[in-house]
């Protein structure tokens, strides 16, 4: 069905077009002035100014491993994270803790623990599934490297990013 689009009747002021040009120019010069005097909030100046302090608490960044206050690595190599990981980027090789060790009771530790950061989707399932609270997603978001190998986070790198995390799990602590 055809219908007629009502055309507005333009006044002579609108027809001459110049007043609206001037009005438009006034708007743009206002924006320019506000920018020049710093009255407009602009985007973050990235390399100098980072997201770090603006990051929300629930932000999921790079997954890391943590140690407890005695310097014991919390991971017991149960491999739950390896199994739950949707893109399968975690690889763990469990090893036995020698009997003479202070933490012999724990029995296992990861001999090798690597997370392939080219695959990781930052879903946080490893953190959720971990019974020992050993793996945490930290706020590091700028994970870069010039080779694929550099993005293969091995155990040393994971502990370097994770650091120490105290509290929560005490069952492996030696009895006083």
């Amino acid at each position: 069905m055809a219908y007629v689009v009502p055309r507005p009747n333009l006044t002579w002021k609108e027809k001459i077009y110049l007043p609206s040009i001037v009005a438009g120019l006034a708007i743009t010069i206002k924006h320019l002035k506000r920018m020049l005097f710093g009255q407009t909030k602009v985007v973050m100046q990235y390399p100098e100014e980072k997201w770090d302090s603006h990051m929300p608490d629930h932000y999921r960044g790079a997954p890391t491993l943590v140690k407890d206050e005695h310097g014991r690595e919390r991971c017991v190599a149960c491999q739950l994270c390896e199994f739950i990981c949707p893109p399968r980027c975690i690889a763990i090789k469990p090893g036995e803790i020698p009997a003479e060790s202070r933490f012999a009771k724990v029995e296992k530790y990861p001999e090798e623990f690597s997370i392939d950061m080219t695959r990781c989707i930052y879903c946080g399932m490893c953190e959720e599934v971990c019974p020992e609270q050993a793996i945490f997603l930290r706020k590091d978001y700028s994970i870069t490297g010039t080779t694929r190998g550099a993005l293969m986070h091995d155990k040393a790198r994971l502990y370097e990013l994770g650091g120490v995390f105290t509290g929560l799990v005490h069952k492996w602590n030696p009895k006083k």
Partner: protein
Amino acid sequence: MDFFFQLPWWLIVTSLAKTIFLIFLVVLPMVSYTVYAERRVSALIQDRLGPNRTGFPLTLLGFKKDFSPGLGGLGQPIADAVKFLLKEDFVPGHVNKLYFWLAPCLAMMPAIVTLAAIPFGSYLFGEKMVVADINVGLLFMFAISSVGVYGIVLAGWSSNSKYPFLGGIRSTSQMISYELAMGLSAVPVLLICGSTGLGAITDYQVREGWLLVPFTDGGLSLREVLLWIPLVLAFITFSISMFAETNRLPFDLPESETELVAGYHTEYSSMKFALFFLGEYTAMIAGSALIVVLFLGGWHLPLIPNGANQGGLEFLHAIPAWIWGIVNITVFFAKVAVLLFIFIWVRWTLPRFRFDQLMKLGWLYLFEIALVNIFLTAGILAFTK
């Protein structure tokens, strides 16, 4: 050639010196920084910052850190130039080679040649600050600058592909329709000044006040007030035609990125594209310079003497004349810079005209206004003698 060798040697030397000064020391840097200004101003208008950091990518050469000279984005035009020089100069297989190569030259050259007739200063060390002080300066400007359209048309045609072709077609009709209005709207200036020489027009404005701002000579007569009306009209029509002539928004139909990819220079890359780009901005500078000469008093600023220490305030004559010569040149290019800012400002404010609207504006309004304006000026001149 014989004629060339019969010229006095000092004329050749001074002309060369003026040409080199104008082109390489003033206009080309001005072009590159107009491009930079375009990016910064557009960014500020759109609440962004624009290119505000340019450094040397030393990490590419194996260094640990990049080096940034702390100039903000002021190095950007240099980086752009280096990029254009190093890019692959690709010529598609389906183009007409001769015209494809000729077009960028034809886009750049007329814009530079028109600058020859512009009096960009008064005197410096007794030399007139104009490369060629010809008494048909304005006609020369119009004649040469209209050659610029051939660059665009040839580029569109020789590219042998649909979008450049459409751009070329649009450019042809646009240029033809606006050149008429532009020429006619300059006629009132000629009627008042009585000369087509740009130097003579400037001299008239130094004596009698700028044409658009007639009280700069200190007084305002009835004749000047009456002439103001046609002159403001002429200024508006001339400026609008100049926007169309230099392919600037809202008249950038030959280029129209949103519909025609990049219009006439779609198939161009590297330095050939850069020549179109530079040509466009040089034409912008030449156009602004022409507006300054015709309507805004050229190099003249009230109370400031010229480069031969004439005119202006009496006590300023104690300062050496060459300083005032340099001040005059600076004033001229400052006025040009203000107009360039307006060019940029308008570009980032207005949307593009539709093609039929453009034609209608050119043929039905600007042409008639300019024509009537001539008779109005002539009448006022006849009755207020």
